[in-house]
């Protein structure tokens, strides 16, 4: 018997839809789990996923990807790459594994929720594969990180981070809960796969894989490429959902969902990826600044995706572009000061050569951020330990969990937007975070930032050591300046760029 072409049977086979007889549509697909937009099953039948994949094809492709990544890892196991790698790159690996592994596991649950509750059979099908993708991403990255635990205890944070009250973990959990766990399948498809994956992580992983290859870290490069190719497929789930929603008059609601998720993703992206690209990546291996990356990939690609769908720029677009100039410089300085609270060792990244590169990429950097680092360097050279470590907490946003950042030497530029609800005062790092809160205060008002917890007596003693204990970051895991301030000695007044 001749086999049918895939196109001849695919749509029938994946349309595991039926007309419910023993339960209502609402009981099977409750709005709060399936579709806050209120479209019917019939309306969702128009969903047409751009990637057509069968289970047989999926397994074949995935097994090859796994075999490729694991075999490269095995082949290079004796290369001692990690031991000889630049400290900045070692920090990027630590940061990546700690931040990403269990975020991927949360994405398993998110995709599984879509696989069960999405009203569109095509979306359920894609999300089933997506859920298996994310499970592979969580497992393979945990496996790769595990081997490195013998090199540094900080790699233990690959699995530990999300089980702690570390400030970054609190922010990360809040983020993924807001985009995924606390949303219906249709909204989640927009927030997770369109705004986050298509808008950020798919492109970010392409860049990270390329950076790893430039570094000579072929193990990590292969790993990330393997993950990214999955991401490129399942990040299309949301685009197809948006077409259905827009066709059925839900453009404004869809636009709002995109804008909420894009902003929340940007806040975390700039906090972690921005410093990685501009400060931690070894200078000789840098091929692009964070700003260039954002403008070329995030801005251009995301704008094109919005235009293709007939959607608008987010209302905060000009503000967003403005923050590309300074958020991550501020974030890097702050994380360097707060380094004992993170599981990686943030390099300062401001030697004269690095400052010259920063000045080229961000004209005026030396007159603004350079002046701040001059003061830090002077304290580091003089061994003033109390001046190069935090004595107080930064304010943390009640939506995104990160601190507000401003352009220094610019008056009172650092932002602080407040709101009152039920007698409690909330703090926001930016107008978009306040906007997100105001759309649905009930989603966020019960959440306590680290600052709220400190003031509420949940962190006892309320000291730096008490904070370390509360966050579960033990001696040996706490970040330190990996260069032991040697960079500061390159910045004598005569050598400043």
């Amino acid at each position, binding site marked *: 018997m001749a086999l049918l072409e895939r196109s001849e049977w695919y749509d029938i086979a994946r349309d595991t839809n039926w007309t419910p007889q023993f339960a209502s549509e609402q009981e099977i697909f409750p709005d709060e789990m399936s579709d806050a937009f209120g479209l019917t099953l019939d309306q969702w039948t128009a969903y047409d996923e751009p990637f057509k994949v069968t289970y047989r094809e999926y397994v074949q492709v995935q097994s090859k990807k796994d075999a490729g990544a694991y075999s490269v890892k095995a082949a290079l196991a004796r290369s001692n790459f990690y031991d000889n790698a630049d400290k900045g790159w070692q920090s990027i690996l630590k940061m990546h594994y700690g931040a990403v592994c269990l975020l991927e596991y949360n994405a398993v649950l998110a995709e599984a929720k879509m696989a069960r509750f999405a009203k569109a059979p095509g979306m359920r099908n894609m999300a089933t594969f997506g859920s298996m993708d994310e499970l592979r991403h969580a497992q393979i990255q945990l496996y790769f990180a595990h081997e490195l635990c013998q090199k540094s205890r900080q790699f233990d944070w690959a699995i530990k981070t999300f089980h702690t009250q570390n400030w970054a973990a609190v922010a990360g959990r809040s983020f993924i809960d807001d985009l995924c766990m606390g949303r219906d399948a249709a909204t989640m498809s927009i927030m997770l796969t369109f705004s986050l994956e298509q808008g950020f992580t798919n492109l970010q992983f392409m860049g990270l894989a390329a950076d790893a290859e430039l570094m000579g870290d072929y193990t990590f490069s292969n790993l990330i490429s393997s993950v990214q190719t999955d991401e490129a497929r399942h990040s299309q789930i949301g685009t197809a959902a948006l077409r259905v929603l827009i066709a059925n008059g839900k453009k404004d609601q869809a636009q709002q969902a995109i804008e909420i998720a894009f902003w929340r993703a940007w806040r975390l992206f700039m906090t972690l990826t921005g410093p990685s690209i501009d400060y931690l990546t070894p200078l000789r291996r840098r091929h692009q600044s964070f700003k260039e990356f954002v403008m070329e990939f995030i801005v251009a690609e995301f704008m094109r995706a919005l235009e293709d769908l007939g959607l608008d720029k987010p209302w905060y677009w000009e503000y967003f572009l403005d923050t590309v*100039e*300074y958020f991550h410089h*501020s974030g890097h*300085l*702050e994380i360097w*000061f707060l380094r004992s609270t993170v599981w990686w060792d943030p390099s300062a990244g401001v030697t004269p050569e690095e400052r010259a590169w920063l000045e080229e990429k*961000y*004209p*005026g*950097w030396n*007159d*603004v*951020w350079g*002046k*701040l680092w*001059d*003061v*830090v360097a002077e*304290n580091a050279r003089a061994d003033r330990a109390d*001046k190069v470590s935090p*004595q*107080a*907490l*930064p*304010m943390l946003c009640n939506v995104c969990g990160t*601190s*507000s*950042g*401003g*352009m*220094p*030497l*610019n*008056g*009172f*530029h*650092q*932002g*602080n937007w*407040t709101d009152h609800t039920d007698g409690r*005062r909330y*703090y926001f790092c930016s107008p978009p975070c306040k906007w997100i809160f105001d759309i649905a205060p009930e989603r966020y008002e019960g959440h306590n930032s680290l*600052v709220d917890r*400190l*003031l509420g007596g949940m962190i006892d003693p309320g000291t730096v050591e008490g904070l370390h204990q509360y966050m579960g970051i033990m001696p040996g895991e706490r970040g330190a300046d990996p260069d032991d301030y040697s960079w500061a000695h390159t910045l004598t007044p005569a050598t400043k760029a």
Partner: protein
Amino acid sequence: MDVIPLVCSFEDGCILTLVPVSVDLTMDEVAAAMAEHFAGRMLETRTDAPMRVRAQGEVDFLPRDLRVRDTGWPSMTTIQVGYETPVAPQKRKAIR
């Protein structure tokens, strides 16, 4: 000694910081307490002008001998700590 946490926005700084202070402090003492976390740490210390305090959103600085307890500030009030003589705008260079 009663202490309240204040949120400090320090002139020319880039990070909002939570700083607990005694309600017995005068505005001059508050400014000095806040400066500990900015001036000489990541900003150059300025000695050419006294530091002043105002609540965020206000234009006028508060009297230097006013005490925290007499301001009526609730906990977590955001204050701005700046210099009486601002830096000339032409000395400020934004990255563009």
